[in-house]
């Protein structure tokens, strides 16, 4: 039996939570180099709150968009920092995509990636090159749109997305932070990967592993 869309989204969040927990120390170490060393802890806290919230939902009888909206609320209520509002906005925008059609079609994969990036950008007022999570999300979005226009199938599309996100995250090493706590370091932020970009790759990879089988 194939899982319904709500259940796939539910499993996707549990995958993200497991992946974030597995990389918690690494993210914290990255943040320690240029920030306050709480990124791994904060992300883990947020996604654990999401999975706890979703565990209390009957995923056979709710819409996938409602799962995303609940995830957004749970993340926002659990996480302060800047990641709380940023990812809450991302999931809320993704929920709006699925409200229009509650399917996990390839078109909706692309639209969700586009919407999540737009949510983060709108909330944080960030740009590409600021050395933030957007340096992974924006290239990932561009890659998704390009792959879609090229007629790629779901596997190829997600491979392109992950490839672009990873390249974007790695490129933050040579950027001087313009936003967030690292921005105050100026040139001393050079040479370090942005922890928000690194966790964005982890999230996208977990999304890929769940969605490209759906």
């Amino acid at each position, binding site marked *: 039996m194939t899982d319904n869309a709500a259940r796939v989204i539910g499993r996707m969040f549990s995958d993200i939570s497991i992946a974030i927990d597995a990389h918690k120390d690494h993210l914290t170490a990255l943040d320690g180099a240029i920030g306050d060393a709480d990124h791994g802890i904060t992300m883990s806290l947020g996604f654990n709150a999401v999975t706890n919230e979703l565990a209390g939902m009957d995923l056979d009888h709710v819409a996938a968009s409602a799962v995303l909206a609940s995830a957004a609320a749970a993340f926002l209520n659990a*996480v*302060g920092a*800047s*990641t*709380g509002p940023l990812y809450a906005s991302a999931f809320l925008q993704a929920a709006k995509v699925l409200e229009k059609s509650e399917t996990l079609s390839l078109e909706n994969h692309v639209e969700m990636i586009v919407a999540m990036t737009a949510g983060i950008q709108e*909330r*944080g007022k960030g740009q590409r090159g600021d050395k933030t999570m957007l340096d992974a999300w924006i290239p990932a979005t561009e890659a998704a749109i390009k792959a879609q226009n090229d007629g790629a199938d779901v596997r190829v599309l997600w491979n392109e997305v992950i490839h672009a996100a990873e390249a974007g995250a790695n490129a933050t090493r040579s950027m001087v932070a313009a936003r967030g706590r690292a921005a105050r370091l100026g040139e001393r932020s050079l040479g370090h990967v942005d922890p928000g970009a690194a966790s964005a790759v982890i999230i996208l990879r977990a999304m890929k592993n769940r969605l490209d089988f759906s």
Partner: protein
Amino acid sequence: MQRFINDPNLVVEDTVKGFVKAHSDILRLGQNPRVIVAKDAPVAGKVGVITGGGSGHEPGFMGYTGKNMLDAVAVGELFSSPTAKSFHDAIREANGGTGVICLYGNYAGDNMNVKMAVRLAAKEGIEVATVVANDDVCSAPPHEREKRRGVAGEIFMWKIGSARATQGGSLEEVRAVAQKAIDNCRSIGVGLGPCTLPAVGHPNFQIEPDTMEVGIGHHGEPGVRVEPLKSAEAIARDMCQIVLDDHNLPAGTEVAVLVSGLGATPLNELYILNDTIETEISARGLIIHRTYIGNYFTSLEMVGATLTVFALDAETKALLDVEANCTMKL
């Protein structure tokens, strides 16, 4: 390192529990366990004054709740902005019907969570004004003052704003004077040793032996320059120079001076610093109205100190002298 904790993941919960027990004469826990509320709040007809910020700065944020001080404070995780919900709940707890002002520090997370909380409160018909503190001189050059972090100068912003609210000031009057207060504060931090988040278990940056970080942030953000460790006198002179050059105050200006430890620096060293600080400030023709020395705004167990100089005028001087009852002597 040896610490007094039960569970590294419950540091904030356990801190808040002990804090509320210790100070039940002046404050209480809000309905949201991440909100501290002054005992008498909300006061009908008075503008509510709130703040919020990450934990680990104690007595920072929650310790300034009280009579003629903050009505409610949102409590975040260690070094992490409170949630939008906690800010929103603090606004509700402080709402006496004539609006609420949120006086907070300039950090990306706080900015976003406060903005969301203000929107949620507006939907309920609560008018909320905000002032953002940006007194940390080394965190951005003068022409980018809006990018600077808020540090210990926030205490003066809270004191002045709260006193004006107590005197019956309107939301706009409270906002204007709190803004004036922070506009007239300049701060600098010097770090001699790093701090460790208990859940992380090791310092998130190193300060090499015999060196110091000038311009260090309140969250262990590395400073803007690393220098060989100097005598207290030389460090205090540098701190005064950085703060006062940025301030550029005419001789005869009255100032309030705050020398705060960052957590692990003994009080006697703050007095050693202050000996030179007083000399330097007076040498510039400034008149010290009041001096505050102690652990007013800390960064866990960081070794170091901050200096804040607050330039006063007749209005802010009178408001500074309004008696307040919170956990710290103000």
